């Protein structure tokens, strides 16, 4: 019983963190319908920014979050204007290899500049602290990340589903030409989506840096999970992605407990099965 509670608790905890990691992708891939293989690298850059800002300016990692968000935002916008804009003129597959190139580029650019060695944040109010209940020990930094995850999800899904801006974003992704006729500046909308996507990836990275190691290749650990999460949740559904994140977290925890070696296989299999039963994902259009 205690075991079940422990696994469930850590599943939900990690699940909300996976959801957080996938949030930016939910926007770019789920809502705007653009494949982004470089999402993991956005995250990685977020982690490095948090690391560099906190280490060199000796600031508390939590305080550095706004700066990290700005870095992510700029990264998203720049990516859009220099690359994605052109990819959108081609078929879907162009996005695939364009962003795959971007992924390699960012990963190895960071390795080129900062070297391949792993790093870790040591100073911070959250780092290394835990709360212990009788049956489970919570890592505070993970708890904080999960909290931010919920907060950001509420924020972003409100923005996408309830606001004029969100409507404009969705319209742009459905039919850019028609959106233009409504007076929507589609270029700006796309850039904004990428900016917000980048910013959330940055924040996710900043939070992850509190308990995760940082290397130039760390993005590749998360990218597939993030894709599976978004797709499982269903395209266009922000809430879906969050719930999918929890599901992925739980699967990983249960499978990891009993059969670690193929726990990822269970995640992918789960995606496959869900989508076979519900081709639009759990909550998709």
């Amino acid at each position: 019983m205690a075991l079940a509670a422990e696994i469930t608790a850590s599943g939900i905890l990690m699940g909300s963190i996976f959801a957080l990691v996938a949030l930016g992708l939910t926007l770019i891939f789920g809502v705007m319908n653009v494949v982004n293989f470089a999402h993991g690298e956005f995250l990685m850059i977020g982690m490095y920014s948090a690391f560099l800002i906190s280490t060199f300016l000796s600031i508390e990692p939590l305080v550095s979050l706004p700066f990290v968000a700005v870095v992510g935002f700029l990264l998203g916008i720049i990516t859009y204007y220099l690359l994605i804009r052109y990819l959108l003129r081609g078929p879907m597959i162009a996005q695939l290899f364009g962003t795959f190139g971007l992924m390699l580029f960012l990963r190895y650019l960071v390795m080129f500049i900062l070297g391949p060695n792993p790093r870790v944040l040591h100073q911070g109010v959250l780092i290394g602290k835990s709360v212990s209940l009788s049956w489970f020990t919570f890592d505070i930094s993970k708890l904080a990340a999960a909290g931010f995850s919920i907060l950001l999800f509420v924020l972003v899904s409100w923005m996408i589903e309830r606001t004029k801006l969100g409507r404009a974003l969705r319209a742009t992704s459905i039919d850019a030409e028609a959106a233009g006729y409504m007076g929507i500046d589609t270029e700006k909308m796309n850039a904004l989506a990428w900016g917000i996507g980048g910013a959330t990836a940055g924040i996710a990275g900043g939070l992850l840096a509190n308990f995760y190691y940082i290397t130039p290749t760390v993005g590749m650990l998360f990218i597939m999970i993030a894709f599976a999460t978004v797709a499982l949740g269903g395209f266009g559904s922000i809430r879906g992605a969050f719930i999918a994140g929890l599901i992925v977290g739980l699967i990983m925890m249960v499978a990891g407990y009993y059969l670690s070696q193929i726990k990822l296989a269970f995640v992918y299999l789960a995606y496959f099965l869900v989508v076979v039963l519900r081709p639009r994902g759990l909550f998709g259009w």
Partner: protein
Amino acid sequence: MLKVNKIEVHYGGVPALHEVSFEVGKGELVAIVGANGAGKTTTLKTVVGALSPVSGSIEFEGVDITEKNTAEVVRLGITYVPEGRLIFGPLTVEENLLLGAFTTSTKEEIEERMDYVHHLFPILKERYKQRGGTLSGGEQQMLAIGRALMSSPKLLMLDEPSLGLMPTLVTEVLEVVARLKEKGNTILLVEQNVREALELADRGYVLETGRVVLEGEGKDLSRDPHIKKAYLGL
């Protein structure tokens, strides 16, 4: 109000419009007619900035909009009801309508216009939460028109608004156009109901293979022998 001056438009190097010029004055209803592929849609799309002319210029209220993109043009007050409807399929009818009001802001205005559109096309009210893409062809056309009416354009450009509408609605839509004109709106209309459109219009232009071949008062044109022969099959 709108001055189109000798625009030439190409599709991948192949010319579709040759030195097309026309004008729409404030408060006027101008019709453009022509056979299939004459270049009517191309003309409207060029005005709204979705296509850019190789040469020539377009002026709207004294501002040169030749090089402006669609969003800018729409913000200046030109609304375009596209050919082929271009409904946002996955979005609900409501969301589609609200998007029509993207450039206007106040809640009251939006509500007022929403009421007007619902009054005009009651079916849209019934289908409020249905996804646009699952509407019937005619319903989509109503939605496209309704969406345009949600904005308050200085110039409304309609590309075959009666396409796929049942006869009662064709009449009604044309009446709406007439009423809008009476209210002082400026309208540029492309229609295949050549006779009705020209009778309604203050002035008309006839496009043939990318050239303006005739222009004049709407009523005169509708009695023009060439028109009768080439378009009405009389």
